[in-house]
């Protein structure tokens, strides 16, 4: 009994001690429900620290820092632009179309949902794949005789383009003294359709008329009126009889306009202006102001004039911009302080109407001179025409009898089956479409009526007789087929590299695409998910510096290389020399500055090349310092309060590769947070979302992988077109919330400081002329300057853009592929514009018979 009492006493004491111990633990690591007590404890600790140490002052976070990026000296481009190489590689004698053996090139493509090779409607690479074989071009870019670059040769054209601008003065907007706006193309008189009928200037005129037919709304129509080589009058013809309404997005102030006789404001072109009352506007996030008024009423707006304004509204939701109407409108958005707008914001509601008169083909700058001569008159002069006229002159040619037979209008909608089957295809290239089975097989055979096989200018070329393309969706199947000898080329994926990386038959094709992590930096959108820390510049930079891009690229891409800049090595800033932007000193300096690599007498490296080679973009120590700074700034500005934060990374799917990539990035983020206030509290969350681009465009996620590319010979337009056009997701820019109009950039141009927004600089580089550099500073349109000048300006702006860390370049895309031992391309190293030489110069070691005999016995 006594023993029991003693035991009970011991147990009671033990329980009390345990309880005390537990209480102590609770104090030091209070659960969330005890948060006030926990705060009190921490508060005391902080007070003690404050008493013994001077208070740490944290610089407040800056959302949009200003940049003074130094000076540039400008030079105008020389006339013509530069020398062009016209000496093409002659190929290998005898290994050409005269070889009597049969050679088949077995290719494949992965499944594609688009297969429409109508020259006026094609959309995708798969579509153009067919066109590339069955069409010729005016001028082709082929291997030069030194096999180290390109040369231009006329194909469907008989000779080089001739500037005939002087002949069109007074027509098509050509003024006295203009040059480089009208180009005469003499056609090769031997060109025929695959059925042997001659192709003349009339075929071209007919085809261009069909292309621009407003009723057909052909997908390629904008090739003639958008971009750098705009045909005079093409857009007016295409939009004939229509009025196009465009949101000015605040780019036009009332002072820029004049009141017409009816009181409605017009611009210098006579275009009428309206107030977008029930019209979707960027200012209201793609919705209409009327929607907002209906939804929120007097909480945000002054409703006194709304009824009157509604009565003034037309069917498009627009109200003519007059002084009276503006006076009625202004109080709606400016009187209620909750909407937080002033009269300075009113231009954001302006909409411009562009009217196009009835179409008249005589006003379109495609003119038949004679049966074998056509003139193309452009709306703007072509800079560097020796290069850009051949580069931009595309052929849009349809066979009239077939096209007329196949086009139909159903209930107002135009449809045609032209270019969707063998029977509805009429080519004019070195090969003709012989067999097509949707998503299964495409076969081309030699077009015996092609002029090139009889003009004596293509000897040493086109040894391939048959091109057989299988559609194989699964890459693993394609690789097995390649190893069996059934395919002559196969693309590799990351897991294949261990086996084939050292193969002598591997080829690397660089692509213009840079894959990036794109961040949402919009305060409101982030607040909705509790991820405001991503809006902090130092946080984004720290995350970026914590990512080891080389490991990432090697682990998760087939042949990608670590990416650091907005543009990769594919982008050429001087088409005449083929000089790569990324290899220029100014571009190298950009990345050294962004990633903190120093060079020169006081730097870590002797010269810029060494410094550039040392860039890894990975600096965990600096990442941690910046992360701690971000922590303090977020605490100070109230965007973070020690809560757990999950930042959403939206990816296309939840397959293994994405999961691994997510894990890699999550580990990188956690590493950067180690030892900082964010440690253990900030992580990534992966969400599979096939519409992740759309999700980012609406601000509903935090991070995505994004990719822009293309136009490798027009790099300078990319900054505006893809990265700076609209912060609200209404443009191409994916970095939601990054408002490039708020980033001030000062460049000293020829000794004069010019301070404008990043977007203004980007618009100037996009060849827009309604920019302050031209209108206020008196500078020339951007395209007028020489390549070095343009390269320097772009580099300054790339530095500014990258320094905002609204995205983090991850890797430059490359495609690794194996080429079979059956034959080989003319060169082993990829060359801009001409690749490895293409099918034109592909030569064979085995004909079909010999290849079948040894099938599957070769080792790669």
């Amino acid at each position, binding site marked *: 009994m006594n023993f029991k009492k003693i035991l009970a006493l011991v147990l009671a004491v033990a329980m009390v001690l345990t309880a005390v111990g537990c209480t102590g633990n609770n104090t030091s690591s209070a659960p969330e429900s005890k948060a006030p007590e926990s705060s009190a404890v921490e508060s005391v600790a902080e007070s003690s620290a404050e008493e013994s140490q001077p208070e740490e002052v944290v610089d407040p976070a800056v959302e949009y820092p200003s940049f003074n990026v130094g000076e540039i000296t400008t030079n105008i481009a020389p006339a013509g632009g530069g020398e062009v190489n016209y000496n093409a590689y002659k190929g290998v004698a005898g290994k050409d179309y005269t070889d009597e053996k049969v050679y088949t090139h077995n290719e494949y493509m992965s499944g594609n949902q688009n297969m429409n090779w109508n020259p006026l409607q094609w959309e995708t690479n798969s579509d153009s794949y067919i066109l590339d074989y069955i069409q010729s071009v005016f001028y082709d870019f082929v291997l030069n005789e030194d096999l180290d670059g390109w040369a231009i040769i006329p194909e469907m054209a008989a000779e080089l383009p001739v500037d005939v601008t002087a002949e069109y003065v007074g027509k098509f907007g050509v003024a006295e003294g203009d040059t480089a706006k009208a180009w005469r193309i003499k056609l090769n008189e031997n060109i025929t359709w695959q059925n042997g009928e001659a192709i003349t200037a009339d075929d071209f005129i007919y085809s261009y008329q069909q292309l621009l037919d407003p009723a057909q709304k052909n997908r390629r129509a904008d090739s003639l009126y*958008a*971009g750098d080589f705009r045909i005079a009058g093409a857009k007016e013809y295409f939009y004939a009889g229509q009025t196009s309404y465009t949101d000015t997005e605040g780019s036009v102030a009332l002072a820029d306009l004049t009141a017409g006789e009816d009181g409605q404001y017009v611009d210098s072109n006579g275009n009428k202006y309206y107030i977008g009352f029930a019209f979707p506007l960027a200012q209201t996030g793609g919705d209409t102001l009327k929607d907002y008024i209906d939804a929120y009423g007097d909480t945000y707006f002054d409703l006194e004039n709304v009824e009157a304004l509604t009565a003034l509204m037309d069917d498009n939701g627009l109200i003519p911009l007059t002084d009276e109407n503006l006076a009625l409108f202004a109080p709606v958005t400016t009187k209620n302080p909750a909407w937080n707008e002033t009269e300075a914001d009113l231009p954001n509601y302006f909409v411009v109407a562009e009217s196009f008169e009835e179409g008249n083909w005589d006003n379109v700058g495609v003119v038949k001179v004679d049966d074998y001569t056509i003139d193309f008159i452009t709306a703007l002069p072509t800079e560097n025409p020796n290069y850009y006229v051949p580069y931009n002159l595309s052929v849009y040619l349809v066979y009239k009898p077939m096209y007329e037979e196949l086009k139909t209008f159903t209930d107002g909608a135009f449809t045609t089956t032209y270019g969707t089957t063998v029977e509805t295809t009429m080519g004019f290239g070195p090969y003709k479409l012989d067999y097509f089975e949707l998503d299964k097989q495409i076969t081309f055979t030699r077009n015996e009526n092609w002029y090139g096989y009889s003009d004596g200018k293509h000897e040493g070329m086109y040894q391939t007789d048959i091109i057989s393309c299988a*559609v*194989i969706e699964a890459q693993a*199947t394609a690789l*097995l087929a390649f190893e069996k000898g059934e395919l002559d080329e196969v693309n590799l994926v990351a897991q294949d590299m261990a086996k084939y990386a050292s193969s002598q038959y591997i080829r690397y094709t660089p692509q213009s695409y840079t894959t990036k992590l794109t961040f949402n930096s919009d305060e409101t959108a982030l607040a909705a998910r509790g991820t405001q820390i991503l809006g902090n510049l130092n946080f984004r930079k720290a995350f970026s510096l914590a990512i080891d891009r080389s490991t990432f690229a090697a682990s998760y891409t087939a042949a990608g290389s670590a990416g650091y800049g907005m543009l990769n090595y594919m982008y050429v800033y001087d088409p005449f020399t083929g000089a790569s932007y990324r290899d220029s000193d100014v571009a190298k300096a950009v990345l050294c500055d962004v990633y903190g690599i120093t060079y020169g007498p006081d730097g870590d490296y002797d010269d810029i090349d060494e410094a550039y080679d040392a860039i890894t973009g990975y600096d965990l120590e600096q990442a941690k310092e910046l992360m701690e700074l971000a922590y303090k700034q977020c605490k100070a500005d109230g965007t973070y309060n020690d809560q757990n934060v999950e930042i959403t990374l939206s990816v296309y799917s939840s397959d293994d590769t994405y999961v691994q990539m997510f894990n890699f990035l999550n580990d990188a983020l956690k590493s950067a947070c180690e030892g900082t206030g964010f440690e253990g509290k900030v992580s990534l969350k992966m969400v599979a979302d096939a519409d992740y681009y759309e999700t980012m465009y609406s601000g509903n996620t935090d991070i995505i992988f994004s990719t822009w590319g293309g136009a490798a010979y027009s790099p300078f337009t990319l900054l505006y077109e893809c990265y700076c056009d609209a912060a609200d997701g209404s443009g191409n820019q994916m970095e939601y919330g990054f408002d490039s109009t708020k980033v001030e950039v000062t460049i000293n141009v020829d000794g004069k400081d010019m301070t404008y927004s990043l977007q203004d600089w980007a618009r100037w580089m996009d060849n827009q002329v309604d920019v302050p550099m031209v209108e206020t500073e008196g500078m020339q349109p951007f395209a007028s300057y020489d390549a070095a000048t343009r390269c320097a300006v772009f580099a300054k702006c790339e530095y500014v853009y990258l320094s905002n860390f609204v995205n983090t370049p991850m890797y430059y895309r490359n495609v690794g592929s194996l080429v079979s031992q059956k034959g080989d391309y003319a060169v082993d190293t990829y060359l801009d514009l001409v690749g490895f030489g293409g099918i034109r110069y592909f030569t064979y070691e085995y004909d079909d018979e010999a290849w079948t005999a040894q099938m599957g016995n070769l080792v790669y």
Partner: protein
Amino acid sequence: MHKYVLKRIVLMIFTFFVITTICFILIKMLPLPTIKAMGRDAKLIEERRKMMGYDKPIMVQYLRYWKFLLQGNMGLGEQMYSSREVSEVMFTKLPYTVVVNLYSILIAIPLGLMFGIYAALRKNKWQDHVISTMVMFFISVPSYVYAFLVQYFLCYKTGWFPLTAATREQTTFFSWTMFHSMVPAIISLGFGTVAGLTRFTRAELSEVLTGDYLLLARTKGLTRSQAIVRHAMRNAMVPILPMILGEFVGILGGSFVIESIFGIPGIGSLFIQSINLRDYNFFMADTVFYTLVSLAAGLVIDLSYGFIDPRIKMGAR
């Protein structure tokens, strides 16, 4: 019976109308992909969408859709197979799916029945255990795993079969060449069907074999085989046959993974891609097609009960 069939057909039409209406509204509630085109005219895309009537009120679009559908016009692809007629794409691809699945179940059904019957007759003996283990294995492992193995060993290593299905340029659908080229896909698709049918047949037959009427049949003097064939199989087939009919309906669905591995241009991926890419016309064409097929199959399966077992009267109270 006729009255019952007519009643079912009327109900089918009503159900078809409700399903297509709901699907039309739901897909139209998903916005079209935003137009993002560097250096191109976004307005042109808008104009093309207007030309297809996408800017009109949803009711107008709905009526327009029915108008065209009743004329046999399912519209054009926009996001997929741009400017191609939806019906043309579907009916170009459908035969491949039908043929490979048809071959697959024509081989799989006898095998499944055979293994199932054998396992039931040898219930709880080692033969039954082996078959049951194999069944569990083949049901548990996804078909694409067999597909890769089959492709590697039978096509690549031994070279007995081609890696991908033949084209229509080389042969016709019901030729030896086409069949030979599809054997790897047929095998890969068949494993699951054989296993499922084996398991189901074994379970049903095992239950029937323990019935009193079977004991009665034996005591009447029927041999074991006679009793099984005349009585046990007939009763066991009542639930099995609808399952087999269901397999035939399933042949129209296709298998995205198997088709992509063996280069079969079937329709396995159309439905999901039409939703992902938001191609309204393809989605609606798929919906209409599969709804019709499923409703018809439901009716056929229901009617089949009456044929298998005359005691089951369709529509009788």
